[in-house]
């Protein structure tokens, strides 16, 4: 399980662009939410790589490069980072 976070100025096509990469690799979205961090557009997804055909490192590279095309910042982190930091 991996957390994908997208931050940047809002514009059409961000969700489509990012989810297209996930769909192409058959990566399942387990949870998705939009919120505002520091007053800018943000999308947070928890995705499951077990159904997909891509490793975390390659997925990060593809998503970051897609993010660059879309003018948004993409972070891809293993879910254990959030478990460690947000749960006692």
């Amino acid at each position, binding site marked *: 399980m991996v957390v994908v976070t997208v931050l940047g100025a809002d514009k059409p096509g961000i969700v489509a662009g990012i989810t297209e990469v996930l769909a192409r690799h058959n990566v399942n979205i387990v949870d998705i939410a939009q*919120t505002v961090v520091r007053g800018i557009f943000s999308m947070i997804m928890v995705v499951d790589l077990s159904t997909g055909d891509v490793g975390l490192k390659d997925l990060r590279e593809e998503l970051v490069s897609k993010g660059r095309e879309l003018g948004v910042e993409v972070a891809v*982190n293993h879910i254990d980072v959030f478990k460690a930091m947000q749960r006692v």
Partner: protein
Amino acid sequence: MTKIFAPEEIGEVIEMLVFQDLDIRAVTLGLNLQGCASPDTGSLIECVERVVGEYASKLSDVVDLIAGKYGVRIVTKRVAVTPASILLEPIARRSLDEALPTALTLAKTLDRVARDNGIDYVGGFAAFVHKGFTSGDEVVMNAIPKALASTTTLSAMINVASTMTGINSDAVLMASEKILETSKATPKGLGCARLVIMGNAPEDNPFMPGAYHGLGEPELTVNVAVSGPGVIEAAIRKAGPNADLRTLHDIIKRTAFKITRLGELIGKEVAKELGATFGIVDLSPAPSPKVGDSVATALEALGLEIAGAPGTVAALYLLIDAVKKGGAMATSSIGGLSGAFIPVSEDWGMSRAAEAGAITIDRLEAMMTVCNTGVDMVAIPGDTPKEIIAGIILDVMAAAIALDKALGVRLIPVPGAKPGDKVELGGLLGTTVVINVPKHSPRKFVTRGGLIPPPTNRLSKG
């Protein structure tokens, strides 16, 4: 389905990692080299090259793998080895003259193997002389200036005091000479950034230049240092001007918990992948010269006009106490220095405060009573007499044994520089101002020689 994490929880972590410079400052691999000690120079060097080479290369790969897996920056990779004094002992016992070139070859070998494998610093060029000198200790101390001048990653440490034994003032005076010799042997005195004089040096310290692989450690161990002053400052500022001190303590404590947990996660994973024992997380928030990653500005966020102002010791105490309590809740693998670092040149807020005259050696000495730094990364005029340096070291060591804590002195006498001059040290070492040192001489005191006995605290230890 129920949400695994609230978006705010994920947003907070991402904000820390992306905007507040939260990262793993150092993954330090402790490596036992006692098996390499030999009366034969060739065998010693061959063994060190082989063992350090094997693990340095593995460490580099594993750190990259784990940083990639978790999406967390790991800023530096380090190796800490068995103190060089122990490795050199069999040769030094035979002949000090013969051992000196071996010590330099050892230093260069460690440095080359580190650089070849992408390791940022290699620590353990160390001598433990808090009660007296062995032949190996003498060789290491004499080799330090040339060793630092002919390497870029080698880190040296001299432990001159301990609560159990007191302070070795002969070692303090000799260490002061070595600081000045190192300053003259390296451009801008920069080699001194890789030389610390310590009291009560911990065996599992992940921070350079004090890191070494202690005698109580296992064969192979991973110790981790986290960054995080930026995260703490952001949390303090978010609480606003009306938050009272206990509320701020609680906020810092909760933040420290999260930072420490990240360190523990990464440290455990690196250790697992390397087949090493996971050692400790050093709780200290480590600053960097980057704007927004400063312990000094975290103190200023608490309400000080500038770090060093009256109230600074109390603010630092509050911050460190909260960091320790939050960190202790986060992990049972605590160790290293676990205080707060306020290295003057490496913390841009400290450096700016030194330039404004708010941070002086006196203020640093006051601050060291509540943290684990001492007088760290302080540029001083290159013509400072060795007796003055020895006096500063003795003061810090007295605090180290009286308060039973680890403290260090890292002074950089900058050749030709006068108080007020700016010095660019480069990279993580930062830019800093040359600080004025007291003029009054302690010469007669520091040259008497002998041991300052341990405190009564020693007696309570049995």
